[in-house]
């Protein structure tokens, strides 16, 4: 079976600095892939390239058999890729409920939306996701007043509302409490049954908990790929990544 996402020979330079350098990755449908690597390795940049936020210098990105290299952000999102940002990005002036409603973006045509006042299935979906994320009692609040952990959850919920085939989660548990992290791990493992995920995370305990495949990036290149066990045994990984963590 071909991968849901196939990245081949991806390169991105800012001025003369090569930030992503001949990076290739294949993600199989229905798996959870953890993308790890030291700070500045290019993980967020890779997500920016996949979601169209920045355009690659060269290389190819195929999603579900379709070439999405350099396509517009909204087109890529519509193709079925949802994203949570490293710095949580929610619509702060809107309520939690409105954030979730906007994220339920089955209909994106402006003219259609001009004559739509009730979105079928929206209420149930909000109920379901808000319950999962423990945000039910916050639905009427402005997103701007949520705590950091709640904001993380709201953004994860927005990705869930989108019902994407591929979810990209950039450091989803940053700023969460132990309990919240455990819950996140549980939910991610659950999600894997129905969707595909790429999760960027520094917390190795969390990675161990959730990952099917671990991909290690270093200076914009793919350093190693495999199960966490294999990765941890890899001497190159130990030197660039795990070594660095021990030093820190």
């Amino acid at each position, binding site marked *: 079976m071909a991968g849901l996402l196939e990245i081949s020979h991806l390169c991105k330079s800012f001025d003369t600095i090569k930030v992503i350098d001949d990076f290739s990755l294949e993600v199989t449908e229905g798996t959870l892939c953890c993308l790890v690597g030291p700070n500045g390795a290019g993980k967020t940049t890779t997500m920016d390239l996949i979601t169209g*936020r920045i355009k690659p210098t060269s290389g190819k990105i195929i999603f579900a058999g379709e070439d999405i290299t350099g396509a517009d*952000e909204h087109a890529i999102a519509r193709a079925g890729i949802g994203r949570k940002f490293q710095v949580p990005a929610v*619509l*702060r002036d809107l309520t939690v409920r*409105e954030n979730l409603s906007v994220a339920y973006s089955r209909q*994106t045509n402006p003219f259609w939306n*001009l*004559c739509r006042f009730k979105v079928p299935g929206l209420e149930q979906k909000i109920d379901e996701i808000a319950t999962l994320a423990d945000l039910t009692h916050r639905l*009427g609040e402005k997103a701007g*007043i949520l705590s950091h952990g709640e904001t993380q959850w709201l953004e994860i919920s927005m990705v869930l509302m989108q019902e994407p085939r591929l979810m990209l989660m950039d450091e989803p548990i940053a700023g969460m409490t132990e309990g919240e992290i455990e819950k996140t791990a549980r939910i991610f493992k659950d999600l894997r049954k129905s969707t595909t995920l790429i999760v960027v995370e520094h917390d190795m305990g969390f990675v161990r908990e959730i990952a099917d495949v671990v991909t290690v990036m270093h200076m914009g290149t793919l350093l190693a790929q495999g199960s966490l066990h294999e990765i941890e045994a890899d001497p190159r990984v130990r030197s660039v990544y795990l070594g660095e963590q021990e030093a820190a």
Partner: protein
Amino acid sequence: MNTKTSAKGVGTDSETTMGNPYHNKTAQWIAYALFFLALAAIPFSVDDDFLLNQLATYGVYGMLALSISLCWGFGGILNLGQGIAFGLGAYGMAMTMQMQTQTAENPIPPIMLNNGLDYLPFLWWPFQNTVSGLIFAVGIPTLFCAVFGRIMFKARVSGAFFAIMTLAMLSAFYTIILDQQAYTGGVNGITPPSPLQLGSFQIDPYSPAAYWTVFFALLIATVIAKLITQSSFGLVTQAIRDDAERVRFLGYSVSSYETTIYTISGLIAAVAGCLWVMVVQYVSPAQLDVGLSISMVIWAAIGGRMSLLWAIIGAFLIQGGQSYLGDAFLSTWLLILGGFFIVVVRFLPNGLASLVEAGLGMLASKPKETSFREPSGVKPVPSE
């Protein structure tokens, strides 16, 4: 900006938001209904034709403020060039009314004859027929907004840059219209000799009929604008105002939404332009003056740009104030207005509407001890 509002207790805290009638959709519609009923009744109590005519012009200003509120308050697109749509609509109407008075023996308007043109320029052709004239009067500015908006928003021009582009565009139109005397009447503009004729009916600018026409158009525009803000489109637009970059990743083509709201706003302004000429029976480049377009933004800002109704009221108050106080304080009026504007922008980000919102919030949250209220059936609306 919003944190400031909540710090001042303007209804963002959990207690006030839920119960505040300001955020209740039904209460909002009732407020709109009362407002328009009051406006509709005015001709019965005013028998000064001149005053009624002046009130009709306020209706036009209200419509302009409404269009700014929709585009800027809800869409987050600051437009300092609304005079383009307003002015083009006004010129279209003036040309239509002018052509209504030309006869077979006398087919060329004096503007051309006085400027050495002995034929009707191509530009004027569509306005020979009233229906097509009205369609072009509204259609051309709307089309302009759609094209200009499309180019700008596709290139992701936004915020202050977009505002400056609209301003530059407005100046360009102003200059062209001033310059092309043979086609536009130059600085004198166009003064159609008789009122608008619709079929066999003549709309005398000083009659209640003219007032009611403006009033009715304002009502329709307001209802449509209100429905837009409550639709799925309106929600996405407000999301874009909040964080356009984020909304793209949810699958929405931000530029299409921006172009659409900007164009609808332009359409409303173009209709306002037509009504303006119907009511005052003249048009000149002053309608495309930068000062007027900036005033429209000030009306909406002082009334409350995130409230359609209060933006309209802002226009009434300021234009009313200008006519009645302005005569007394002629030279200081601008200073007063400027000071007022600064105070509002600094302390009331949503203009006078924030005062009303706070007042209603205080009334509604009298029983303070309630700890947590579930969002009962009524969804709070973010703005308005």
